């Protein structure tokens, strides 16, 4: 034991409103690797942490949804840039979290970075793909355009701690929603580290809030929260998903049910459109119109 350097452990914290608090409850839980070796103590979030996160997400919604789609795309791309720089860190964390070989973990991290890039490009295109002009039978100019639904609670996938997380989070914020994410219960560390990337990527504080802990403890309060507009049940088992969907009916939240997804495959637009509202604006045009104009 001569000169071996003792490594510095990291205290993992929550990410709420752009800050890194400990759980209000003061609780932590043990996170282990695939072989049951201790990795770290993660914050065990309380219902109060979840409510604080909703408040932060609501506060951030106006600015984020009001930002130009171009600007949001830039910010999402910046996340990919910052992740690329920390690639090795995430490969190590995913290796430990999911018990993958280093090369498989590297493939997962690369896919996750590429996914941010993919969604960065969607921000200023989705309105053209799913919105448009409606040729109504009358003297009206009538446009449908998508708008973010608001605060989205996201139960991140349990087994895909990083690629799965990115695959459900990026589409939510790409369209201008803000998110409260419950990380994978048994493998929360890549999510908590992602928070450090988000905090340094121009993502405004509160746009993404990340909690670690027990979904069965904190998700019900998010599902029943009157100021949450939608919930993605990706990481819920069948029983919890049903309970949460029932709670979500209280204020008619938009619900995305859990489904079998291979996150390595190219995602469609479903996760983008699941949390969009269509607003249709009518305006009178009177009798004059280009088509009927004589010049």
């Amino acid at each position: 034991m001569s000169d071996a350097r003792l490594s510095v452990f990291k205290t993992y914290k929550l990410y709420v409103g752009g800050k890194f608090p400990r759980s209000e409850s003061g609780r932590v839980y043990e996170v282990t690797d695939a072989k049951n070796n201790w990795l770290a103590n993660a914050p065990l979030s309380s219902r109060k942490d979840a409510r604080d996160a909703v408040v932060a997400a609501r506060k951030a919604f106006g600015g984020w949804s009001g930002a130009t789609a171009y600007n949001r795309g830039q910010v999402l791309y910046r996340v990919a840039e910052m992740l690329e720089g920390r690639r090795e860190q995430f490969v190590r964390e995913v290796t430990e979290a999911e018990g993958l070989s280093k090369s498989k973990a590297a493939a997962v991290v690369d896919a996750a970075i590429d996914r941010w890039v993919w969604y960065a490009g969607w921000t200023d295109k989705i309105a053209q793909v799913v919105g448009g002009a409606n040729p109504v039978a009358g003297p009206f100019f009538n446009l449908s355009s998508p708008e973010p639904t608001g605060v989205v609670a996201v139960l991140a996938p349990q087994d895909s701690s990083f690629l799965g997380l990115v695959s459900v989070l990026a589409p939510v914020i790409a369209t201008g929603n803000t998110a409260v994410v419950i990380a994978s219960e048994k493998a929360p560390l890549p999510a908590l580290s992602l928070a450090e990337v988000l905090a340094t990527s121009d993502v405004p504080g509160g746009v993404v809030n990340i909690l670690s802990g027990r979904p069965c403890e904190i998700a019900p309060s998010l599902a029943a929260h009157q100021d949450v507009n939608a919930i993605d049940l990706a990481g819920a088992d069948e029983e919890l998903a049903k309970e949460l969907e029932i709670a979500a009916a209280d204020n008619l939240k938009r619900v995305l049910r859990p489904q079998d997804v291979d996150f390595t495959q190219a995602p469609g637009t479903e996760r983008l459109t699941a949390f969009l509202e269509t607003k249709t604006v009518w305006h009178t045009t009177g009798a004059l119109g280009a088509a009927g104009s004589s010049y």
Partner: protein
Amino acid sequence: MASASAFEYAPAPESRSVVDIAPSYGLFIDGEFTDATGGKVFKTVSPSTEEVLSEVAEASEEDVDRAVKAARKAFERWSALPGAERAKYLFRIARIIQERSRELAVLETLDNGKPIKETRDADLPLIAAHFFYYAGWADKLDHAGFGAEPRPLGVAGQVIPWNFPLLMLAWKIAPALATGNTVVLKPAETTPLSALFFADICRQAGLPKGVVNIVTGDGRAGAALVAHPDVNKVAFTGSTAVGKAIARTVAGTRKKLTLELGGKGANIVFDDAPIDQAVEGIVNGIFFNQGQVCCAGSRLIVQESIQDELLDALKRRLSTLRLGDPLDKNTDIGAINSAEQLARITALADAGEAEGAERWSPACELPDAGYWFAPTLFTNVTQAHTIAREEIFGPVLSVLSFRTPDEAVAKANNTQYGLSAGIWSEKGSRILAVASKLRAGVVWSNTFNKFDPTSPFGGYKESGFGREGGRHGLEAYLDV
């Protein structure tokens, strides 16, 4: 409102002879009219006279099951049909609706209580247009933006309200059939007749048996349909309370769900608005269909500087509205749909008075028989008042005022609902700025209550989810 003036008209009743209402109707299952198991029936009355129009079968859970089985059986062949063939059936239906539109308009007015000029000039043309619009989609689904070869879901269970009985049927059935689904539809208890006439239209169009099934009954039949394990898609238009119950019922299943629920639409009038047009829009927004419209502009939010001028003009206009026989072509305001609904409107209006708002109605004689409510205006309303928060679903307008555009937006959005809103201003930049801040699925600028099959319709927040109409309306019936 029979004030003697230059606006007096002689009665101009539409003839009832174009409609032949049978003394009783069965359920329409697998292409046949059939009695309900157990033989239960209920009566449907004309809200303007309380005359019994017909007796209708009351579907039991067993009947709902029979209808779903028929729809399931028909699904196999209907969904396998080339889109172009399905399109032709829908075009046939659209044409027959046009041919029979006078008959259907009179029928709808008798059973619902709404004025003939609205069924004739608004409902029926829109109903035909919906079938035409979705007919054209049936063979173009590959190009609709939901991927190549999108698949139908299966059996659609659809529950519709009494305010636009045949129009809501068209909104539900046209996209369902175009996309290759089969249908079990439950019309509202108080307005079942036009759906049963539609069954006859399906027969005339030669629609294969079981593709459309109509089960009449009350909320229990609707609940049984929504809960049926072999239903793949649930579509509901109606109250927010029932919508929440349905959302709980389908939780944990694979059923796809769309809900079109209540609203408390804000109609915002800025000081530069064209006052006369705004007054027409306000009247149309809240007194069309006796205010029994989910997207009604039930909260008038007017800029303080023009409030007095606007209210004077509005009251003058209201005094010229004619209330009475819905079959009279000059009638503007018809009957409330049911005694139950009238009681609810009355209770909420009384609550408005009790909470200190100022009530006004034009001089107005109400007929002795039937269910009637005079057009009513409340001023001195605050956001805390029950009448400013709860959906009344009747001809009752609450007036609030504002000073700045931000205040108008804040007040407009201060509701659990998010279905519709109106903006009245001559300034384009203001309209676009305010429209972008309103949390509502439909925003009408310098107009109100306009509908079109090409235009998606649906709400934010507790006004439900999903969109009906337009390309967006296809998604609800496709596996995407």
